[in-house]
Structure formats: C-alpha cells, structure tokens
C-alpha cells in the first residue's frame, strides 16, 4: 500500500522541524553569551595566577601571603622586583566602599520615600526622570566633576578645620564621589520596592491612628526592607568596582595602612588602572592578580550581604 501523507500530519511535521531549528538557534546564542563569562574569568584566572607560580623572567615568583597582607605596593625598582603587596589597599577599598554606603544609603532611601509616597504625582515623575538621568551619566564625568569641584571643597574644608590635606586628594573625596554615583542606583531600586508595598498594610496602619510619617517609617520602609537591602547590595557593588572616577581624586597612595580620611588613598581598582597602559611583564600580570582579589572581595561582600538580607527577613509584597 502506498504511503500517503495526510495534509494535517505534514503541517505537524513542518512545525516540529521549525520548532527544533529555533531551539537550536536559541541554544547556540545562549551558549555564546554564557561562554563569555567563562572566557573572561578563565583569562583573568590564568594570567592572575602566573605571577605566583612562574619565575617571571628571572624576577622570582611572588609570595602569596605577603601579597595579601603587606603594606607597600612595590618594594624596590619597577621591573626589577617581585615584592608586590596589596594588604593596605584591600583595607582602604573596604573602608571606602562601606563609608560611601553610609553616606549614600540614607540619602538614597529617603529620596526614594519622598518620590514614591510624599511627592505629588507630577513632581514624582519629574524626579524619577532626573534620577534615571543621573544613573546613566558615565563614571568619567563624575570623575571630572570630582577632580574639579570636590577636590576644592575637601581642600577648603580641611583648611577650615586646620588640617593640611594634599590638594584635596583624599579618602574623603573618593567617598564623596562614590556616594554621589551610587545614590541614583539606591534611589531607583528602593523606590520600586517602596511602591510595591501592599496598600493594605499602609491603610491598616493609618486606620489604626498612626500619622503618615509614622506609617512611612515604621510600616512602609519596614515592609520594603528586602528591596531596599537589594539596592544597598547593588550600590556597594558599584562602589567597589569604580575605577576611573576614584583614580582622579584618590591620590595614588603606594604604601602604608592608613585610615585617615583626609590622607591620600588607593583602591584595588585604581592600583590596577594607574600606569597600566605603559607597563609590561610582571608589573602588567600582577594587575590581573589584583583583579582576582577584587572579584573575590566582591563575591564575598555579596554573599555576606545576601546572608544578612535573608536573616533580616521578608514581608509579603504585592
């Protein structure tokens, strides 16, 4: 008996073939985009580990523990020494990121509260657009702004309190620049979190006699704490990863643990950036090692903050 294809089955087969082809296309794009993270991570890992395990063209391998705990970027002549260490830079980076969060978090969350709950609708829309514009300004612009205005401000401020700062290049200037950069991030995410708090919670609190302010601070912010915490995590992530803007105001400290707000400083990102374009050999490879340390610091910070976020708990949001 001849095999006859009924039209319905033929259409079904065509659709199945099309679906399979599309599935293969989507899969290949996914593989392509996800492979980037492996390529990037792999390159940095390989290049970053070489200073510790190879002889670096006769300079000797870099010792790992002194690298993580030492207090001088490079002891000895450039290109002739393998005594690198970043202990003091790790400490400064963490301090700067935390302090910038201390400055930007209250301002960001309170701005978000104003936009989401207190401002009249038209004003709220304008402010939302302004914050989005601020979030999209490239970091180099913040750096130039910092170098032009904030350095002057910190210099005059420190002269006023009787302390001689180094032209304003200081930890305080870096903290201020980073705070200005992270406020838009914190505000926009917190604002979304605040807006999605269940209206019933708010109305219930008002019905029980609480004032609007009491409701906002004790009920709304508390209910949105999960989203607000997420904004803090993203804010500190941006602060830890910022290179260009900070390098213009930090001052390039090369040795010594320093927790002095008005003294020059360095962060992991700025030490990688400074001098990178004209350097070769071990001096170039060691920056990949610093990159690995930075990635580890960011991952650890994220893990710790996510753990705290889970402990802080979650209130049912719509």
């Amino acid at each position, binding site marked *: 008996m001849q095999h006859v294809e009924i039209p319905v089955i033929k259409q079904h087969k065509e659709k199945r073939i099309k679906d399979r082809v599309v599935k293969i296309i989507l899969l290949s794009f996914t593989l392509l985009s996800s492979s980037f993270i492996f390529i990037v991570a792999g390159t940095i890992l390989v290049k970053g580990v070489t200073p510790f395990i190879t002889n670096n063209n006769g300079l000797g391998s870099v010792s790992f523990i002194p690298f993580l705990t030492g207090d001088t970027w490079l002891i000895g002549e*450039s290109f002739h020494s393998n005594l690198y260490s970043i202990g003091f830079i790790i400490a400064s980076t963490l301090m700067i990121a935390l302090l910038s969060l201390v400055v930007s978090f209250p301002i960001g969350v309170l701005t978000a509260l104003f936009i989401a709950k207190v401002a009249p609708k038209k004003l709220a829309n304008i402010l939302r657009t302004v914050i989005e514009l601020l979030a999209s300004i490239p970091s180099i612009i913040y750096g130039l702004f910092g170098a032009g205005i904030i350095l002057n401000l910190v210099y005059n401020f420190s002269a006023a309190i009787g302390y001689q700062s*180094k*032209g*304003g*290049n200081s930890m305080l200037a870096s903290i201020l620049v980073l705070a200005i950069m992270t406020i838009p991030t914190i505000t926009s995410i917190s604002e979304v979190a605040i807006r999605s708090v269940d209206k019933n919670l708010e109305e219930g609190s008002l019905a029980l006699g609480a004032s609007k302010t009491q409701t906002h601070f004790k009920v709304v912010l508390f209910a949105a704490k999960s989203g607000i915490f997420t904004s803090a995590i993203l804010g500190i992530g941006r602060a830890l990863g910022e290179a260009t803007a900070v390098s213009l105001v930090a001052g*390039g400290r090369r*040795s010594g643990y320093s927790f002095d707000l008005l*003294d020059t400083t360095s962060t992991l990102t700025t030490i990688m950036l*400074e001098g990178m374009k004209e350097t070769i050999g071990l001096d170039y490879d060691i920056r990949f090692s610093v990159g690995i340390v930075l990635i580890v610091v960011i991952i650890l910070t994220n893990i710790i903050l996510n753990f705290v976020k889970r402990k802080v708990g979650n209130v049912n949001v719509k």
Partner: protein
Amino acid sequence: MKKLFGIILLTLALTLSACTNAEDTFDETKNITVYTRDTTSGTRAGFMEGIGFADAATNDSLLVEGFVIKDNTGIMTSMTTDQFGIGYVSLSSVNDTIKPLSFEGVEPTLAHVINDTYGLKRPFMWMVRDAGDYSSETVEALVNAFVAFLGTTDAQDIINNNGAIGLPATQSWDDIKDDHPVTQQDNTGVVVRFGGSDSIQKVAEALTNSFTSKAGNFTAEHDHTGSGDAYKRTQDPAIKDTSVGKDVGFASRYFKDAEKIGVETSDFGQLAWDAIVAIVHKDNPLNNVTADDLKKIYEGTFATWSDLLD
C-alpha cells in the same frame, strides 16, 4: 529636626567661611605636598635624572612618604588649588594658571632650552645602522631619507605638537625630497624597523605616520623597549642581526661612551629636547630651585616650606 538643621547650617558656614577667607601671607610652617607622575612615566625618569635622583625614577620607596600620584594634567590642576604643593610637568604644558620655577637660576623658556642654558631637560637621540648593513638598499635609502626628514620644519612641527621641543630647522621636506628619489617610488611591502626608548614612542610614531605617506607608503614597524636597546639593536654585533634587530633606534638620553664604539658619527644624532619644569601654586613665594633643593624635597629631607625658603 531643629538640631539637625543647626548642624547642617554650621557645617555649611564653616565650609563657606574657608572659601571667603583669603590667605594674604604664605604659611611657611605647612608641609610640602609632593606631587609626582607614576613609575612608568618618561617625564618622571627625565626629572629624576635631571635632579640627580635617578634611583627614584622607577622606585617609589625612595620618595618621601605621602606623595600624591597624578598624571600631567592632574599635576597642573592640583597646583592651581594646592597652595603648598610642588610638582613637575613637561614644558609644553606650562600655562599661566601655575607658577613655573627657574632651575639653577635659568627661566624655563623655549629659547633657554634651545641655547642649552636651561638644565632640566633631556635629549631625544636617534641611532641607525652602519652604511651597507641594511637588509636591502631600499631600506637604507629610506632610513637616510627619514634622518633627513628629521631635520625639516615638517618634522619639527610634528615634534612640537607631541610635547617635545624640536631643534630649529630651516628647510621643509619639499626642499630636500629630490635628494631622496627612493621616496618617489612605490615602497609598499618594504618594512623599516623602529625601536628604542618608549618615552619617545609617541613622537616616533607621529613622525613615521606622517613620513610613510611622503615616502611611498612603506611599513613602519614600532617596537619600543627602552633607551638601552637603541644602540643594542642597531649597532651591537651580538644583537643587531637577530630577530629583534632594528634599523632606527631612539634614546631619551645621550649615548654612553660604550655605545659609541665602532659607530660612525653620521650614524647618530639628536632630534629634539624634552624639557621638564618644576611648578608651584601662584601664591608660593618661591621662584628658583636648584637640583639639590628638588632632590631634598622629593626624598623628604625638606619637610616644610620653611626648610626651603629660609
């Protein structure tokens, strides 16, 4: 609420009062804030060699503690705010927002650099291979044409535009190009190898970028690895014929005696000066420094401005 408002007002008042308070007298008890370039900078190498502190060119641990690292523009802008700072920039960046210091009594002007009275400078030198020692006659003719090009007004303009100071020239390339007929033929595929100092790389690449189109579009290969390699890769018998050998090498210092052995005087010369100027804030009463003063400032012996001004 009122307390918060009061604190904010106080901080604002303190900051603003500092802005309006104009310092009429220069406070000599303040510390000298030392600004420098980072260790990979050629300007830093030139400055440190010029003040007799060559070890500090690539070694941060020899400098005074608490120095500030900035790039060329950063040092300029810092000197406009920091009254108690001192730094150095290349002569071509100096403008009237800061005060340039005289070096050993000589003012930092273009004329003083060219007549060799201003001391804080270093020469940009070139060295080529011996006659007949090239991979082909075309390459040799092109190198000779390039060396002649370095002495033209066209080359001096390019050098001046790239931060160095060209030596005075009288002829333009058009006046002399007929002496080098190799530049009129098609030279695509011919490779001329340039190397030597990395401080000169920017100037060298600008010069070859302009020259290749005037000389038949030959390919200029740049591999800059340090002033020491200028002699080694063009004249040193052990290295010049290996794969890293070069046809033209540049150095940001005079050639040492050991590097002139067996080298014809026509095989090397100077193409430019690179002058460095120490700068301070305009309110600073200092006008002149010696090499010894600068060395003492950068190593930390002079800690406050009174050490230097009295």
